[in-house]
């Protein structure tokens, strides 16, 4: 009899795991709480480092699903161990599975928690996700008034490396995202002035440093200092304050749009699913894998696996790699 695998989460991690398990001959049920597949990536316009359209990645993943049974708008309430398998209750119906993969991903840091940055308060303070929406809709950033922005500031590390909001970890992808978005702004609005306020630029992946150089050559100004406060001024513009730490002087400037590079936060709702299954949560609030080095996809509970950003901030490449590894581990488990 064909064994069934339940995958919770229809983002990149879930889709890739489903695809692999499908091709290995398993019956796969993919649970997605929203009405679309692709997770956060589906809401993104273009991707670093090659500015490829995010929709390409999402459609390539969704089109290769084969016999995967996709359940969208289906929220998983609980997962219980029963006999040798699991019972997943979602939208008031129960599903049985022989193994479970948590691919629940993350949530974007709620930027309003950083009150002094003015998100949700000042109309031209937006997040990196909001900017992607603007790129999708208009192909360029637009002020709340509809005007064309002339000066745009990207603020790195919003909800990352900040103990004041209980996010002490680095979200890994925001630096290079900011660099990518800064380039896109310069490309869409060549006369605009773009500034990146960073603490440390962490461009560790293939092509990332090239992107950084490209941003510099396109005239993006990098200022080493963390934003400390902001206020709204005439015309809904925003006055921001930071220290130019390389010059050791405080710096203030007014900009038309402030883009907050929101980090990846653990999804508290799915962490409950995990803890109910006996999984542990690490110090940063993400699901802890069995062994960080040798078993990054396994968990303390037999038959339950993790994939992707539910274990911590990750980019698409690493998430896809993790998903493939998870699929293999599930296969080994089910054919033991």
């Amino acid at each position, binding site marked *: 009899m064909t064994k069934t695998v339940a995958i919770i989460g229809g983002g990149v991690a879930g889709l890739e795991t489903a695809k692999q398990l499908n091709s290995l001959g398993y019956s796969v049920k993919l649970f997605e709480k929203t009405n679309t597949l692709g997770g956060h990536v589906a809401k993104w316009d273009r991707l670093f480092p090659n500015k490829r359209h995010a929709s390409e990645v999402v459609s390539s993943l969704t089109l290769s699903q084969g016999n995967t049974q996709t359940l969208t708008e289906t929220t998983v309430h609980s997962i219980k161990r029963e006999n040798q398998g699991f019972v997943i209750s979602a939208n008031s119906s129960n599903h049985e599975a022989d193994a479970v993969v948590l691919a629940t991903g993350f949530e974007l840091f709620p930027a309003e*928690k950083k*009150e*002094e940055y003015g998100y949700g*308060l000042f109309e031209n303070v937006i997040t990196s996700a909001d900017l992607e929406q603007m790129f999708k809709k208009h192909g360029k950033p637009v002020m709340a008034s509809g005007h064309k922005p002339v000066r745009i500031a990207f603020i790195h590390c919003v909800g990352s490396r900040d*103990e004041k909001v*209980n996010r002490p970890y680095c979200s890994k992808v925001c630096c290079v995202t900011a660099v990518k978005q800064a380039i896109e702004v310069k490309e869409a609005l060549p006369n605009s002035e773009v500034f990146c306020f960073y603490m440390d630029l962490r461009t560790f992946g293939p092509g990332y440093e090239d992107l950084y150089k490209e941003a510099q050559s396109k005239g993006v100004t990098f200022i080493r200092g963390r934003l400390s406060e*902001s*206020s709204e001024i005439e015309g809904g513009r925003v006055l921001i304050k930071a220290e130019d730490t390389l010059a050791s002087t405080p710096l203030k400037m007014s900009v038309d749009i402030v883009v907050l590079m929101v980090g990846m936060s653990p999804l508290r709702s799915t962490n409950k699913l995990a803890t109910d299954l006996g999984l542990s949560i690490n110090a940063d609030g993400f699901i802890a894998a069995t062994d960080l080095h040798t078993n990054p996809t396994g968990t303390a509970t037999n038959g339950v696996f993790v994939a992707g950003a539910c274990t911590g901030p990750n980019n698409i490449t690493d998430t896809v790699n993790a998903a493939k590894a998870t699929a293999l581990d599930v296969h080994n488990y089910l054919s033991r």
Partner: protein
Amino acid sequence: MNYYHHFVIPFTAGLLFLVIVVAAKWIGWIKNLDAEQKGLIKRNIFGKASLHATWEVITESLLHRRIFQKNFLLGYMHMSLAFGWFLLIVMGNLETRFFTHGQMNPPYVPIFFEFFEHDLSTLRYKEIFTFVMDFLLLFVLSGVALAYMKRATSKPLGMKKATKHAFIDKLALTSLWLIFPLRLAAESVTAGLYDSGGFFTRWLGEAIVSLPGADMLYYPLWWAYSISLGLFFISVPFTRYMHIPTETLLIFLRKYGIREKNEHTSYTQVELNACSRCGICIDSCQLSSELGISNSQSTYFLKSLRDKKTTDYLTETCMLCGRCDFACPVGIENSTIRLNQRRETPASAINFGYVPTIEASKGKIAFFAGCMGQLTPSVTKATLTLFNAAGVEYTHIDKDATICCGRPLQVNGEESAAKELAQKNKQLIEGTGAQALVTTCPICARIFAESYGLSIPVYHHTQFLYQLAASGQLKLTPTSNLITYHDPCELGRGLGIYEEPRELLKFAGNLVEVKSSKTDSLCCGGSLAITSINQQQRSQIAIKTLESIGANDVDFVATACPLCKKTFTAASDENAILDVSEILVKACTNSRQSLKPEQKQRTKETSTVN
């Protein structure tokens, strides 16, 4: 009749010593009060204040009303010891007077009356006297028994932590604890041997003397009783028991209107000596209950100051939240004394010569957001939205540049540095020609009100908004939100503002009252008055405080201080922490229409919106 026996010497000598020392101390303290304080005594000593003071001496020094309020058993223990002993002395004196027909007797006679007189048949109301005297002795002994128990475990008496005492204190304590059991033993043996005494001493005495050789105990017991009394009296000036005579003086001085000033005075000495070291302040202190710092509380600090052995650690390890001031059964101004001690050793060479003079545009109401306000733009925005809705003509005086109000320096003992900043801000405020000053920050509000000497009234924004709401200028429609309110220390215990924010919240939603509120409210942990605790510790305190106000059972946690808001937000991801003004905006019916003009108005800094 001539009553005398050598064993009375320890008691009499001890009593004489005590009276002389206490008298000398009182005279010294009163003599060293400053002219203003002496003036208060002269003005009030022959007035109602003295009567009030007497009444308070009875209710507090004897009956221990405040301790009763804290815990019944603890109150009973103190009351039985103090009031019981007092009555024993009074009744003993009456008994002796009656018996000797009004003769003046040496002070030891009523104390040792059972020794001197075995045949009380000529005493009028003999039955009543002997009964009452035995009853009172038992009453006192019940208190002593509770005191024994408290040493063993203080929990049932409502105290988690008892004060740790020095050796001399323990010696005094031992002699005090021995006094009444020895009196009981001496009187009982006497009663047994001579068929005298009351219902209890006679019964006990007969039981004792039926034992062989018990009559040998007669003299030794009376000697021991006298010695324990004498020892106790001699130890009083050197121990915490000095609080017994000092508290009486303190009550009178306080009723005459004398308070701590902004430096130590002779009155401080009275307060220091009036501390009974009961340790109630330890339990009220969150440093102890949340962080396990249980060696810096007021009881320890005051003792160290009394012994002139205080340390930076004791002076500085305090949030100055003021909880212990309100919990103290003696009503000692702990926080003020601690602050004054900080003022004794300011850091050298703080220099604000670089601060320029700032000017702001003119306006009827000067609005000051303060330093913290720049990190809580939503509070400023909400307050100004409400001002606009109510048509307040204001000028936002620290919009572009802020000078700190000086309160954070003040609470760290940097008085002259704080004054320097105050001077600059005063110029700024007075330069606007405003009729009132409104600030969203209780920290600023406190120093504005207490130390600036401004000619215009100072309002915390909750006070000012309350006036607007009460007069109908600000139209509020309650929402169905459940709200709990956290009293900021500087606003509540500091400035005594408890009601206005609550009334405002009632206009805006359903206010849930909690147990630890108002004078008993907990500190958020963000206190600027302590620097040595770290952010994790502050968060630990904040989480407990949120718990105490039932944060998880409501829609919003309201506070009225930007620092409290920040501290709570950093500590908890789960709760929605809002300033009172932010909650009001949600309920304000005339703010929505005025949103547009408000935006225009902000560009002009100062203006009117109708």
